């Protein structure tokens, strides 16, 4: 079912937790609410789940307005950050909890619980209490418990934050596969940008209760709406400059560092001609010094990460620039060397200062 948030707002006295968020999530798609802690993403999710009453605005699931519906009548599957498994009930009883509340007959209940245990590779663990399960197993029980009731929408509150890094990626892809298979419309809260980019169809970046940008992962990475989004998603270099020529969409920018680059204007261009140009680390190539169109820099540190090598170089004016390159291309640089940095001619975005 489609989920629609209309001008949803939550305030506590003078404090604004969520300042008007509007979003539509199409049937079967997943929206990631992404942002640092305290940005309002969890508050938004809890409003959808029915634990917090919005101050204004409305929430629609399908054709139905569920804004004032109590939590237990909303028919939403929710996977908690702490999993919130009932400690006094076994894995199977935890999964059966929602079915019991819905008055599903015993035979059908047992059959559905068994099917769900199989689906999440939990068979054999049915009688274990939560504390007798590993973190990964607990997480799967929590997912099973949310899915077994055939919810109309699925909500995920940082479901991977308590798993170790290795488990995280596999579990994420598995969950994403389940969600697609069941065609569940979902909202997924996270502070981890790579998690959001790998799982969600749409990402909503939030900060201080305000929605900064909503779009696909590539839109948000390549055309961030503002500096905050650019810095929050991936690594970013900003070099100041002045617009030479151009219309509202794209222009030539003379960087203070000495070269001229083409750039696309961000969504909110200002009136002034002073701008900052976003150059992603992978959009900078290392060259020998003196090549035309390149910046002079001194290599400060080289950080080897396997597939990628990050070269941190300082420009003459003191700005530190990070370049991402392959191990082969990085061989021309050593710490202390003078080197040329050549920005790509595409994919640069300018922001008004």
């Amino acid at each position, binding site marked *: 079912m489609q989920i629609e948030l209309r001008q949803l707002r939550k305030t506590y006295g003078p404090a604004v937790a969520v300042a008007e968020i509007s979003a539509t999530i199409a049937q079967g798609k997943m929206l990631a609410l992404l942002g640092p802690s305290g940005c309002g993403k969890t508050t938004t999710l809890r409003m959808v789940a029915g634990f917090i*009453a919005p101050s204004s605005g*409305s929430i629609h699931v399908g054709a139905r*307005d569920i804004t004032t519906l109590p939590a237990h009548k909303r028919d939403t599957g929710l996977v908690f950050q702490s999993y919130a498994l009932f400690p006094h009930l076994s894995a199977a009883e935890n999964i059966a909890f929602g079915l019991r509340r819905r008055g599903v007959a015993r035979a059908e209940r047992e059959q559905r619980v068994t099917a769900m245990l199989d689906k999440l590779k939990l068979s054999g663990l049915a009688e274990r209490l939560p504390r007798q399960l590993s973190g990964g197993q607990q997480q799967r029980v929590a997912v099973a418990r949310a899915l077994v009731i055939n919810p109309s929408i699925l909500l995920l509150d940082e479901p991977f934050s308590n798993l170790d890094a290795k488990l995280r990626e596999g579990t994420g892809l598995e969950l994403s596969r389940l969600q697609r298979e069941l065609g569940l419309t979902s909202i997924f809260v996270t502070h981890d940008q790579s998690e959001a980019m790998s799982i969600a169809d749409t990402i909503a970046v939030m900060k201080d209760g305000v929605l900064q940008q909503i779009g696909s992962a590539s839109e948000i990475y390549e055309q961030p709406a503002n500096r905050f989004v650019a810095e929050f998603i991936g690594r970013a270099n900003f070099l100041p400059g002045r617009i030479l020529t151009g219309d509202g969409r794209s222009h030539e920018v003379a960087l203070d560092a000495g070269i001229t680059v083409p750039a696309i204007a961000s969504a909110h261009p200002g009136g002034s001609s002073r701008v900052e140009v976003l150059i992603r680390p992978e959009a900078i190539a290392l060259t020998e010094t003196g090549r035309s169109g390149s910046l002079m820099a001194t290599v400060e540190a080289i950080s080897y990460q396997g597939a990628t090598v990050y070269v941190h170089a300082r420009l003459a004016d003191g700005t530190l620039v990070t370049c991402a390159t392959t191990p082969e291309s990085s061989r021309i640089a050593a710490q202390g060397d003078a080197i040329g940095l050549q920005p790509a001619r595409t994919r640069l975005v300018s922001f008004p200062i």
Partner: protein
Amino acid sequence: MTAERQGAGARRQAALVPILLFAPCVLVYAIFFIWPQASLLAISASSKSGPGLDQYARFFGDSYYWEILGRTLGMGITVTVITLVLGLPTAYVLARSQSRWAGLLLLLTTFPLLVSAVVRSFGWMVLFFRDGLVSRTLLALGLIDRPVQTMYTMTGVIIALAQVLLPLMVLTLHGVFKSIDRDLEYAAMSLGARPAVALGLVTLRLARGGIVAGSLLVFSLAISAFATPSLVGGARANVMATAIYEQTVELLDWPFGAALAAILLVVVLGLSLAYGALIEGRGELEAPR
């Protein structure tokens, strides 16, 4: 608009729940706690001809009652000191011991709390009589040359009362010591402090708040205890609690008894406010858990 009205109704209903949850407790406290205590204060401040402080004037004008108050406070201080001297080492040993008996010993400490004070005082009475164990042990040790009667003396009351209240001190201090990271002691010793110095400079200093809190608790319970002074002390050990009992139940002078009760109440309340302020003012580390 319907949705909004429904929302307001649901919110009003939700606001009713905490009120309903609190209602029984608030009602019971209002009727059987606040009201009786308030009327006790009112009665204590009445004389034959209407409101007045006659009862208090009688108390503070008579050296006999000053003596009782002094004896009560002296008893409280002595009992507190005894429970501290025995309670500090015991709580420390139990908190730091890694033996599996430590848990059992802690349990054994709580056991006397589960036995009625009447029964415990009775045990002391058997020991305190002229031919009891206490007297005979002291004789055998050569500390006295003829049998002594500890029964019906202030000494007896203090020994018995300290035993009644000691478990509370041990439990309070045990919680405090447990919450002090033993690595702090190791750190002090690694910096050159001898164990005794480390104990004094680090552990006892950090436990200071808990020690004061435990002492205030024992002190206020000691000055309000009734069963032990009345059984072990008899008429000889006249303290505030027994005086209140005498005035009310035996002499039926309820206004004066109420005034005595009010004075005791003020002392205890003052101490517990200090206790509260102490726990508020200090970090969690020092407050008993």
